[in-house]
C-alpha cells in the first residue's frame, strides 16, 4: 500500500514538472539583480540572510527548470530531500543505476550552468550579450 501511494505521488509530481515550462539554458542575462548579487556573495563566501535564501531557492528552481523532469525528480529527491538511491528507485520504479545516472547527469548540468553564470566558462560580457 505504501509503495503504491508513493508511486502515485511520484508520478503526479513528474507530471507536474513535465507540465511546467522547460528552459533550454539559463544565462547571466536571465538572472535577476538579487540572484546576481547572491552569486557574488557566495563567491565571496558571505553568510546570507533569510531573504537571500529565498533568492537562492528561486535560482535553484530556475536551474532545475533547465533539466528534464526525470532528472529534476532524481536530483530533488536525493540532494533536496536526502533520499537514498534505493528509496528513489523504489519510489520511481527506476533501477538504482538509472537513478544514479540521472542524478549524476543533473548535477553535472547544473554545475556547468553555474560555472557559466559565474563567468568561468566564457566571459560575463559574452553571456549578457546572448
Amino acid at each position, binding site marked *: 500500500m505504501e509503495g503504491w501511494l508513493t508511486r502515485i505521488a511520484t508520478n503526479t509530481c513528474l507530471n507536474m514538472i513535465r507540465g511546467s515550462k522547460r528552459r533550454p539554458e539559463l544565462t547571466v542575462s536571465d538572472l535577476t539583480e538579487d540572484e546576481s548579487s547572491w552569486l557574488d556573495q*557566495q563567491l565571496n563566501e558571505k553568510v546570507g540572510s533569510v531573504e537571500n535564501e*529565498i533568492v537562492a531557492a528561486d535560482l*535553484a528552481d530556475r536551474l532545475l527548470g533547465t533539466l528534464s523532469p526525470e532528472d529534476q525528480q532524481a536530483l530533488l529527491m536525493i*540532494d533536496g530531500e*536526502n533520499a537514498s538511491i534505493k528509496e528513489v528507485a523504489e519510489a520511481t520504479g527506476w533501477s538504482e543505476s538509472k537513478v544514479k545516472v540521472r542524478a549524476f547527469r543533473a548535477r553535472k548540468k547544473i*554545475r556547468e550552468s553555474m560555472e557559466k553564470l559565474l563567468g568561468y566558462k566564457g566571459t560575463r560580457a559574452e553571456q549578457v550579450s546572448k
Partner: protein
Amino acid sequence: MNYKHITEIVDSASLLSLSPEEVEQVNKHAEECESCRKAVAAARISALAMRARAQEEFRVQPSPFFQTRVLAAWREQQSVESGPAFLRLWKSASALVSSMALATIALGVLTFVYPEPATAVEQVASTDAAEAVIFDQPDEQLTYEQVLSTIYADEDEAK
C-alpha cells in the same frame, strides 16, 4: 589526479554530503588545478542553492485563504460571545435611543403641562368673534333682523 576524476567526485553527490576524506581530496586537488577549483566553487554554490530550495519548501507558508478563514472564525466567535442580536444592537445604539427618548419626553411635558399663553393676534381675533360668528353662519340659519340688530347694536347704544 586529473580534471575528469575530480569532477566525477563532485558530480557523484552533493558537495555538502561528501565524506571528510572526499572533501579533503577535492580541496587538495583544487588547490593545484584552477579549472577544478572553479568546478568545485560552482558545485558548492549549486549545492547551497539546492539546500535553500529544500528548506524553502519546509518553511511554513500560509495558504492564500488562510487570513480570510482566520478572520471569519474570529468574527463568528465574537458573535457567539456577545449574545443575542437584540443585546448586540442595544450595546451599539443605546446612547442614541436614550437621547431620543429623553427628547420625546421633554417635548411632551412642554406641550401638555406648560401650554403657551395666548398671543396678541389671538386676543384681537376674540373681539371680532361675534361678527365673525355671524358672518360665518349659513344664510338660512339667520334672520334678516338678527343680522341688522347685530351690526347696528353699537350705533343704537351710542345714540
